[in-house]
């Protein structure tokens, strides 16, 4: 059993930190992908044509109920072998697509909950003022629907940050893989993996506090919301 060594700690730190850069980059890329793709799911949900909506919702349900690891493996290893549409993808791109699509299904639900929470009276007021569809969404509905979802969206950012090490299984070497490699090379795992834990904590915990604060601020704002329309009985 090897004891704690500060010299190993300082030796491993830059290596692990390099991995952190990749992990953060991947987190942000996946998150942006999921934020945008989430909107597409929300639009699909609102489509009036059943024949298109239902199969796509089924696909969404399927994506949500399969593990992200399986999806990553499929995109990276199996997709290139699919006839016609299949192609080989770079590990980083595969990870962005795989994790991005997986989380977009959850983020689409977050958007939907925000939109559903907008009082029916607001839609009616927009109609009574003769708003067209696009202005109704950009000026009336979304400015009310999105702010309350910010805390939930922030939570998904943290969850995603903790999940991206999955991508090391297809070769995107982030913080955990770098630490693991260092351990294998020097036969010392304690220090590099401790650094990993500390770095995750240092990033996740303040983010969680920040999101909590945001949440309280949003709640305060919407506490004061006037009781409007039919739901306010």
């Amino acid at each position, binding site marked *: 059993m090897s004891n704690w060594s500060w010299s190993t700690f300082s030796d491993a730190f830059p290596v692990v930190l390099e991995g952190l850069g990749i992990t953060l980059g991947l987190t942000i890329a996946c998150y942006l992908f999921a934020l945008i793709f989430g909107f597409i799911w929300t639009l699909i949900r609102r489509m009036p044509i059943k024949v298109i909506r239902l199969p796509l919702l089924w696909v969404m349900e399927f994506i949500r109920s399969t593990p992200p690891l399986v999806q990553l493996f499929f995109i990276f290893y199996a997709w290139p072998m699919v006839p016609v549409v299949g192609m080989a993808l770079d590990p980083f791109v595969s990870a962005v697509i795989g994790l991005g699509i997986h989380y977009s299904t959850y983020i689409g639900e977050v958007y939907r909950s925000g939109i559903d929470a907008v009082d029916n009276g607001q839609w009616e007021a927009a*109609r*009574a*003022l*003769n708003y067209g569809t696009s*202005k109704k969404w950009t000026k009336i509905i979304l400015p*009310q629907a999105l702010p309350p979802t910010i805390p939930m969206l922030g939570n998904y950012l943290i969850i995603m940050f903790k999940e991206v090490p999955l991508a090391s299984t297809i070769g995107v070497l982030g913080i955990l893989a770098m630490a693991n490699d260092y351990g294998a090379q020097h036969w010392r795992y304690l220090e590099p993996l401790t650094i990993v834990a500390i770095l995750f904590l240092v990033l996740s915990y303040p983010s969680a506090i920040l999101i909590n604060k945001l949440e309280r601020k949003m709640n305060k704002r919407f506490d004061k919301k*006037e009781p409007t329309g039919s739901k306010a009985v």
Partner: protein
Amino acid sequence: MSEPIVRYNDVHKSFGDVQVLKGIDLDIQPAEKVAVIGPSGSGKTTIIRMLMTLEQPTSGSIIVDGKNLWHMEKDGDLVPANEKHLRQVRGDIGMVFQHFNLFPHMTILENCMTAPIHVQKKDKESAKKDSIEMLEKVGLGDKLDDYPAMLSGGQKQRVAMARALVMHPKIMLFDEVTSALDPELVGEVLEVIRDIANEGEMAMVLVTHEMEFARDIADRILFLDNGVIAEEGPPMDVLENSTNERLQSFLHRFRT
């Protein structure tokens, strides 16, 4: 008599199996003030909601200023109206709601300015000027930068009226606009409606439970009962001289 600005032709409305309106025929003249009274569930709110295109009639037609509201012509046939057609026809109609429905993320001034800018495509400066003028008229010139959550119910309803008026509609609909207010705040809202009515040029349809007020400002009162217009006429005839038993018992509950 001049051409009516609104005409209902045998309008029916059902929600599921429940028939709410069973054949409404009604002409409203330009600048006419019509009050609609009746027991709850009689369909009085539904009448104006169909005119604002918030509910679609099950059958019959509504003509606004000579144009069919819920139908449009296509290759010589009448087909259900699309959103574009609805927008064209309902542009002259404004509405004030029971629960105000102000936009909580905008200040009072922004609430009034938003539709003139984004719907009527007015320039920002003139929309702002009109809005301030209108808010001063309803007595809220000192609240321009407040948010709706900071106002009393009566103040909110006055903002809602300014927001509708700044669009300069030819027809204004009032859906039980004092029902959600504390009793001591009802007066200030009725006062504003009275001012608007006295200006005279707009047609107004008020769904209300304020009998005295209806008598004061309406040219005509409709008593709606069981999905039909059971009685109509000048306020005095309807409120004092009617022999309709249902109307008598309805009014009796308000006199006690």
